[in-house]
């Protein structure tokens, strides 16, 4: 079954359209003019419906769903930042993190899941940036759900072709003598960036250092924040 890009079919109750092959793909309508004012659309209804059907069929329970939502809510860039700060102060940890992010996360009590993540480290010679050109692969268990722009056509298309220009659009100017390396993530291997430790942070403790590690710095479109003066 190839792509269905024709949506000129007739109005249809519930916005569902069966392609008539028995089990076939269902395509909700594009939004109808008369429902534009509605506070919800077909896909929101579909999300509610599929969840309820899964619970009714015992595929997962309402508690499973609640617990998963809580897990998703609990993930934020704070976990990744904690790891970066530890890597800045502890060379042994830094090395273990570069070898195996998932194992290093476990050391800090962070569950980074089972899909491999590779840490790439910024230095005075290399600046790393991550993207997923094909979809939206992202180290979400370490830094939360990806921002919209990470999934945008513009970022996915251009980050691999003209990364310096894209970085400049984020206000990040990488000096010409520093190589920019772009890592294209896949479903089987994700990346996270270890930004450079900002100058003027000697003697800082990990917690204070972690406050300088933004989400964007772990994607590579920004540097870690400089210490406030």
């Amino acid at each position, binding site marked *: 079954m*190839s*792509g269905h890009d024709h949506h000129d079919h007739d109005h249809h109750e*519930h916005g569902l359209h069966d392609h008539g092959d028995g089990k076939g793909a269902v395509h909700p309508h594009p939004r109808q003019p008369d429902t534009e004012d509605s506070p*919800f659309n077909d896909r929101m*209804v579909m999300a*509610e419906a599929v969840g309820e059907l899964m619970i009714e069929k015992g595929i997962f329970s309402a508690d499973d769903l609640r617990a998963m939502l809580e897990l998703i809510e609990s993930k934020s860039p704070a976990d990744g930042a904690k790891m970066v700060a530890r890597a800045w102060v502890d060379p042994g940890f830094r090395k273990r993190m570069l070898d195996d992010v998932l194992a290093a996360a476990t050391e800090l009590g962070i569950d980074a899941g089972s899909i491999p993540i590779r840490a790439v480290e910024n230095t005075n010679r290399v600046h790393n940036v991550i993207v997923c050109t094909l979809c939206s692969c992202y180290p979400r268990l370490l830094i939360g759900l990806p921002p919209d722009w990470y999934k945008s056509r513009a970022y996915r298309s251009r980050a691999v072709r003209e990364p310096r220009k894209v970085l400049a659009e984020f206000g990040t100017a990488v000096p010409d003598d520093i190589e920019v390396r772009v890592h294209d993530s896949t479903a089987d291997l994700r990346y996270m960036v270890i930004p450079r430790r900002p100058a003027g942070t000697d003697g800082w403790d990990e917690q204070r250092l972690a406050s300088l590690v933004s989400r964007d710095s772990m994607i590579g479109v920004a540097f870690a924040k400089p210490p406030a003066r």
Partner: protein
Amino acid sequence: MSLRRHHDMGGLAAGPVEAAEHDYAPWEKRVDAIVRLLSHPSRRHLCVDELRRGIEELGPGVYDELSYYERWISSATNILLEKGVITVDELGRKMAAIEIRWRNDRNAPP
């Protein structure tokens, strides 16, 4: 001579990156949770590769028209239908019931 599919956009020309982001709505997190639960090793009703195949099969028109989690729920639903985990009829009836419920309660929707 390349035969790219629409999702394979690395290296193509495109406009400036707009630093847009929004807080995910409850229904979007719900989609994320449903997909993660279905792909959990204890269930395996859906794996990430199937989800992506389903998204790519939406075709270029629908792909661009839908938002991110709209693509996810469309793909996941199609795969559940394909596998016979749910039927078109069941889904249609459930969606109709939810729509009525939500229309009758302006405060209910996500």
